[in-house]
């Protein structure tokens, strides 16, 4: 007995498609509903930031990092300033570090809200979870606006600290915002984790074995979803993460559902971290004085943070000039795409969309 073989044809998922989250294209060869080949096409949003950064001073480069992963600008700022501080050997005061942790974790909350919401949207839940997520994300963005004046591209971190001290009333506002999150996470958990349709759509879809995940350099929830306990906040603590009590959530099978549930649990952990950071917010200056035209000594540095999408690394090479000789971003969502083909081929078109949603890409970061 033979299976019925259709005529394969190519279908372009993107560049303008509701589920590619930006101008990103998958050239999928499909046989009926089954994907037999997938090719990624990107570069629609390429702005050559790495080249532009070589023309600007170290401080001037901070706004660029906002615009790579525009959904987690605080984490991007943080990774970059950490790299510069490592290169130049600058110490950050305690208060500055605590503020950085608070902001980075709030950014993780906001970004995971978007990730979880968009992912459920990709599975076909008609906008409801994403709207709930947006409701809480808005409050986080309000906090950012209160602190840095901007909502999306905050440009808040500075080399040696943060741009401004926390405004008056921030702590109460932050606690009020935080209070909403456990409820949101429980709501999402109740609505999706127990939903048979959602489980049927996500469980066993886009399975990544731990070996595959490691070999394909995946990071963040993708890696943890496959059962690898890896979190740079724990493994290589920066900004005093070793003082905070939190845990790393890891998945079981490495399927789309595990990535989703890991993100949800990470949000819970972030809430925990922020509460601890707010409780023990030290006094003192928020920043050290750093010369405007900073000239770090000759050398190179690779610093990374655990961004919402995974290991966000910055590789800087200095030649004692006022601007980096080489500025390289290790973009988590770009490298997480490495395994897209392996995860989608063999599944249906609908599965491919779910897998893409579970990777949680930001096209600004892929193309840079």
């Amino acid at each position, binding site marked *: 007995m033979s299976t019925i073989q259709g005529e394969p044809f190519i279908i372009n998922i993107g560049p303008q498609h509701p589920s590619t989250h930006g101008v990103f294209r998958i050239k999928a060869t499909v046989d009926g509903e089954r994907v037999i080949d997938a090719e990624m096409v990107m*570069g629609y949003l*390429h702005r050559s930031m790495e080249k532009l950064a*070589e023309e*600007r001073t170290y401080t001037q480069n901070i706004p660029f990092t906002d615009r790579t992963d525009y959904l987690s600008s605080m984490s991007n700022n943080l990774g970059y300033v950490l790299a510069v501080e490592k290169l130049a050997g600058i110490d950050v005061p305690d208060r500055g570090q605590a503020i950085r942790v608070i902001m980075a974790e709030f950014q993780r909350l906001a970004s995971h809200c978007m990730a979880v919401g968009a992912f459920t949207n990709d599975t076909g839940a008609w906008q409801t979870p994403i709207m709930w997520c947006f409701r809480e994300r808005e409050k986080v963005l309000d906090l950012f606006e209160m602190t840095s004046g901007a909502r999306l591209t905050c440009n808040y971190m500075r080399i040696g600290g943060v741009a401004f001290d926390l405004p008056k009333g921030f702590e109460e506002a932050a606690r009020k915002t935080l209070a909403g999150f456990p409820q949101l996470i429980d709501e999402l958990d109740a609505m999706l984790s127990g939903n048979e349709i959602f489980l049927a759509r996500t469980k066993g879809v886009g399975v990544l074995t731990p070996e595959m995940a490691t*070999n394909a350099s995946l990071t963040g929830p993708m890696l943890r979803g496959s059962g*690898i306990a890896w979190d740079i906040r724990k493994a290589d603590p920066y900004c005093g993460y070793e003082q905070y009590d939190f845990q790393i959530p890891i998945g079981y099978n490495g399927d789309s559902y595990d990535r989703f549930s890991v993100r949800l649990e990470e949000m819970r952990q972030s809430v925990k971290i922020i509460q601890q950071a707010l409780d023990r917010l030290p006094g003192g200056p928020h920043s050290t004085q750093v010369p405007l035209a900073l000239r770090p000594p000759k050398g190179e540095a690779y610093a990374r943070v655990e961004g919402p999408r995974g290991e966000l690394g910055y590789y800087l090479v200095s030649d004692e000039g006022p601007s980096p000789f080489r500025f*390289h971003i290790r973009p988590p969502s770009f490298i997480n795409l490495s395994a897209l083909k392996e995860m989608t081929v063999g599944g249906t078109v609908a599965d491919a969309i779910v897998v893409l949603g579970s990777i949680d890409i930001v096209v600004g970061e892929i193309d840079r």
Partner: protein
Amino acid sequence: MTRELTGEELAAAAERLVPGSVARTEPHCCYIKPEHLRETMTALRDDPEMDLVYLANLCGVDYWDRFEVVYHLHSFVKNQIGTYKCETHDREKPVIPSVVPVWHGAWMQEDEAYDLLGIVFEGHPNLYRIFLWDGYPGWPLRKDFLSMPGGLQPGLNEFAGVSRRGEPPVRMTE
């Protein structure tokens, strides 16, 4: 804390696994000879002592006189990170062996380095211009690529007297 392996440790490990593979050593990194690159990387990945199973970052750098490809390798269990490098001095056709057979994650990063720096990764299954379109003139991240219109030279012209480059002649890669 992640332990950053020093150049000596990295070189010792590479020499132990593949004798004669180390080109030179610096305090924080270790240069591998291109002809031994893939062999050494495979050995480092599979060696239980080093356990560098994870390619954290792959990045090409243009140093005017040479191209370097930087590999940041990571071990989860040992929690250590090491920086290996591989360099080529040929500016016309820089060729470095591909490590895609060792790490699948290198695939797109090597594509990117090829697209922006023009480093050809030998043995890469699908080397193409991942961001820019086919036929794009030149390699934008090279230091001699003149990107600005009007014949302006790249550099910090707005900071008087701090132009640090310009010594080597600027070529139009058109």
